[in-house]
């Protein structure tokens, strides 16, 4: 009811003064929002703790979107995001909300929840003064809750803990309050207990945003200083840069300069994100929105770049660390004739995801392709899925590899992964936080899966880069009848050479077609053989029945096989079909 929810009837932009029926086509006047009426905030959470659902409710409450049953993860625009229930790409929405007779502009910057995307989180946070830290009342603090808290804490942001899902049967908000107090040192009375799903108590979240998060410290009168915190690419309009204005004003027709590349651009359009782009006359200091300025390439809108007015240079804002790829993978077209299509698909996709690094590469087995760097495994999977879904591209993804520096001489699960314990902290009676130093190649492939299955899903995991360490790594060759298979040369830790070698040999044994002679498959380190498998020769390979009606079929089959043979790679006198490598590379695990 209206009484119970003060401001609910008058809080929304479309029905209020900004969008009076007479001036529906008019662009909103953003000058009405003074700096002290602006709040920039983010929602951060562990995966599945309900971040996107809370965002939906906030959008509904402020009339930004209609309140219907269909509002599910409105800010998750990509198909892959909705399918996987994760947020990959940061999204921004400007909310208009009246509280105690005053109209506020609340800029919500949605952030990805997964550890792989903490880069996106950190750059979103730089445009904020506060965060909502959402924690599941059932699961309590999880690994990424901790990681995200520290990102916000380091950025000196106000943290509002929000305990979500209190409607669930096993919810224990009091226990979670205690955890928050213990781990984050936030008094338990600061926690807001809500059910985003049912909308319970969500209103008080908005009020806390206004009351607890400070307005941005900016000055409208200073010359323009805008931070680029994200960018997307639109086929028709070019680069759309998401900006947070720290000082000054920007409007259509302004000449702006990128502090990074020193190029000058003319602003074609400015506006707010609602959550779709809505153009405005101007954007003012403290506000968050977008601008389009004839940039042709997302690399021109570098994340962390500062934009200023032509002839009014300013001190650039501290940029962020650029994304550092943690996982690499070879990506190849399934069919080489698809190379150019895949190339353009990758180019388009990286326009919207500048954290992916791309280098041309080629493999004897797979032809021309790329070596791509990703922020993590999920990031890699998401990228692959987007290629398939949005560009209909079929690719072969080879085993991810992690960067080594070339000075190559270098609990049970954790022990087997060459980890060193750093510290341990009990979060409460039933939870413990362990910190380990891991070699990255031990965790990129399936550590998280193994951890989850060993702990029956209770353990959660997060990591950050701890730099390079020396390790005893060796180069392992795979040989077929004594000839090295270059496609399968692997870097592996000395202690695991045997296991890895054995796995590769077994996989090859299963995929190599039998030939007229025996094939010895060996894994070798230097001259030492660490594993061996044998493919027996064919003793019988001839169609039993071949009469009138069978001949056409038989000839077709033989010709197809002969064609396939032409495409095989010859190693010594052994013919190896390319998909044999693919099968080995695709599923190979560095355990």
């Amino acid at each position, binding site marked *: 009811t209206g009484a119970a929810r003060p401001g609910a009837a008058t809080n929304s932009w479309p029905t209020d003064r900004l969008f009076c029926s007479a001036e529906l086509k008019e662009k909103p006047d953003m000058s009405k929002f003074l700096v002290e009426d602006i709040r920039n905030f983010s929602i951060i959470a562990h995966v599945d703790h309900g971040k996107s659902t809370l965002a939906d409710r906030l959008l509904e409450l402020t009339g930004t979107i209609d309140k219907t049953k269909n509002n599910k993860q409105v800010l998750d625009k990509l198909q892959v995001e909705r399918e996987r229930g994760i947020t990959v790409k940061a999204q921004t929405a400007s909310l208009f909300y009246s509280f105690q007779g005053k109209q506020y502009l609340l800029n919500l910057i949605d952030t990805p929840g997964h550890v792989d995307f903490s880069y996106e989180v950190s750059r979103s946070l730089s445009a904020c003064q506060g965060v909502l830290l959402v924690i599941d009342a059932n699961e309590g603090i999880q690994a990424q809750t901790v990681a995200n808290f520290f990102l916000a804490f380091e950025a000196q942001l106000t943290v509002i803990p929000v305990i979500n899902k209190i409607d669930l049967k096993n919810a224990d908000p009091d226990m979670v309050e205690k955890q928050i107090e213990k781990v984050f040192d936030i008094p338990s009375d600061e926690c807001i207990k809500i059910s985003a799903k049912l909308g319970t108590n969500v209103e008080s979240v908005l009020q806390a945003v206004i009351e607890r998060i400070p307005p941005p410290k900016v000055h409208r009168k200073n010359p323009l200083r805008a931070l680029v915190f994200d960018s997307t690419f639109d086929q028709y309009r070019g680069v759309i840069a998401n900006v947070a204005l720290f000082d000054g004003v920007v409007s259509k027709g302004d000449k702006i300069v990128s502090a990074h590349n020193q190029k000058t651009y003319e602003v074609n359009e400015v506006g707010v994100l609602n959550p779709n782009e809505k153009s405005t006359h101007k954007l003012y200091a403290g506000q968050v929105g977008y601008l389009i300025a004839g940039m042709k390439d997302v690399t021109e809108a570098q994340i962390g770049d500062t934009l200023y007015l032509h002839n009014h240079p300013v001190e650039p804002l501290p940029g962020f660390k650029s994304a550092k790829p943690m996982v690499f993978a070879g990506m190849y077209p399934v069919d080489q004739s698809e190379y150019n299509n895949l190339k353009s698909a990758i180019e388009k996709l990286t326009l919207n995801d500048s954290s992916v690094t791309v280098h041309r590469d080629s493999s004897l087995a797979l032809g021309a392709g790329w070596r791509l760097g990703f922020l993590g495994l999920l990031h890699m999977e998401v990228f692959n899925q987007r290629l398939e879904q949005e560009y209909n591209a079929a690719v072969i993804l080879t085993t991810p590899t992690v960067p080594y520096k070339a000075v190559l001489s270098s609990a049970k699960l954790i022990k087997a992964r060459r980890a060193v314990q750093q510290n341990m902290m009990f979060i409460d009676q039933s939870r413990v936080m362990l910190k380990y130093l891991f070699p990255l190649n031990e965790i990129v492939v399936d550590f998280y899966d193994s951890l989850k299955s060993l702990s029956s899903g209770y353990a959660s995991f997060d990591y950050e880069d701890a730099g390079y360490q020396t390790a005893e790594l060796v180069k392992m060759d795979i040989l077929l009848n004594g000839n090295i298979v270059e496609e399968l040369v692997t870097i592996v830790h000395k202690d695991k050479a045997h296991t890895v070698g054995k796995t590769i040999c077994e996989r090859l044994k299963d995929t190599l077609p039998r030939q007229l002679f025996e094939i010895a498959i060996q894994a070798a380190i230097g001259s030492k053989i660490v594993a061996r498998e044998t493919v027996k020769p064919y003793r019988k390979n001839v169609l039993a029945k071949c009469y*009138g009606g069978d001949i056409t079929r038989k000839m077709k089959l033989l010709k197809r096989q002969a064609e396939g043979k032409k495409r095989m790679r010859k190693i010594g006198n052994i013919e190896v079909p390319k998909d044999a490598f693919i099968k080995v590379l695709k599923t190979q695990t560095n355990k």
Partner: protein
Amino acid sequence: MVLPAARTRGLVAAAKAAQRRRRVDSVGGSPSPEPASRRAAVYVHWPYCEKRCSYCNFNKYIPRGVEEAAMRNCLVTEVRTLLQLSGVQRVESVFFGGGTPSLASPHTVAAVLEAVAQIAHLPADSEVTLEANPTSSPASRLAEFGAAGVNRLSIGLQSLDDTELQLLGRTHSTSSALRALAEARRLFPGRVSVDLMLGLPAQQVGPWLRQLQELLHHCDDHLSLYQLSLERGTALFAQVQRGVLPAPDPELAAEMYQEGRALLREAGFRQYEVSNFARNGALSTHNWTYWQCGQYLGIGPGAHGRFTLQGAGGHAREARIQTLEPDNWMKEVMLFGHGTRKRVPLGKLELLEEVLAMGLRTDVGLTHQHWQQFEPPLTLWDIFGANKEVKELLEQDLLLLDHRGLRCSWQGLAVLDSLLLTLLPRLQEAWHQTTPSPAPGG
């Protein structure tokens, strides 16, 4: 068997005609052989079975009732049409396959043979084979087929183990099969062939070899050993997929094959083709035609044929497939005189590829003389003489190339399909080097 008077008269007339033909021909002395383009084998497909065998994916139907007279008329019409189209003047063999052609009436067989003899020369010593199921072949019926002109039987015995026969979905038992075999031999001495399968799920080498040895006590002069191939769409395939039956072990099948062919060699059989063994010269001339890439007409639903149209000139041999489904096939035959659904012209290279692939299945392989009959642009020496990969096969004793021609060694024959993956591309390569711009379709 009670037949209406009219049909009985027809049957008797046809049988008498067949016998007359045989007498006439045997008196007439050796006929002058027509050129290869005027000669052909005829395959007649009888598409019906009593019961579906668990391994069979052939074009066969389990009918509620066969309109045999209509079927017979259509077979007769089609064989006439195709003989006329092909301009074939001499038919050297006729093979009634299926399905289960021994379920057809002898009258039908006689009528087809009569039609052939009316249009072309069907010498008395032409091989006329009928595939027979042990259960549908009582002695009296076999005799009727003999009277109708059949002079060779191929019996689908498949196994001498009742459990295996059940697994295969066969309607006969070991004892009934052996009884049928004995009767067949009495009626067609020296002209009976039996099929034995190997490589069945769970089948072991020792017991299978004992089956073969047992069969040697009962069989005539011709034997075929077929490795089971699991075909999609069969009950057996589904059972193996579901894990109800173990997948056949190819290693064991290979061993059975090697041991089996060695055993037959010792017993005086010549392995004249990958799966076929004969003694006392009892080779099947009909099948020999396939492997020598002679012409053959395919009659009946789903039958395949390969022949040159009369007047087409040159080498425009066609691969033909008749309409699969019996009812549709009959409609087409009644409308157009034949039920050819698909005609694919065979290019010269394609023909040579078949000559190579089929010829090497036989023990004599590809003789230089045989190869030259197809007027290739290159000799076998030209094509294979200097090739490195072929040389490796020769050195490994899998293949022989000498003054006689190109052929598989004893162990090479068992892996012919692997050898062909080297030989076929080599033939194509040599062909493209000598014929710079191949005409479309060859």
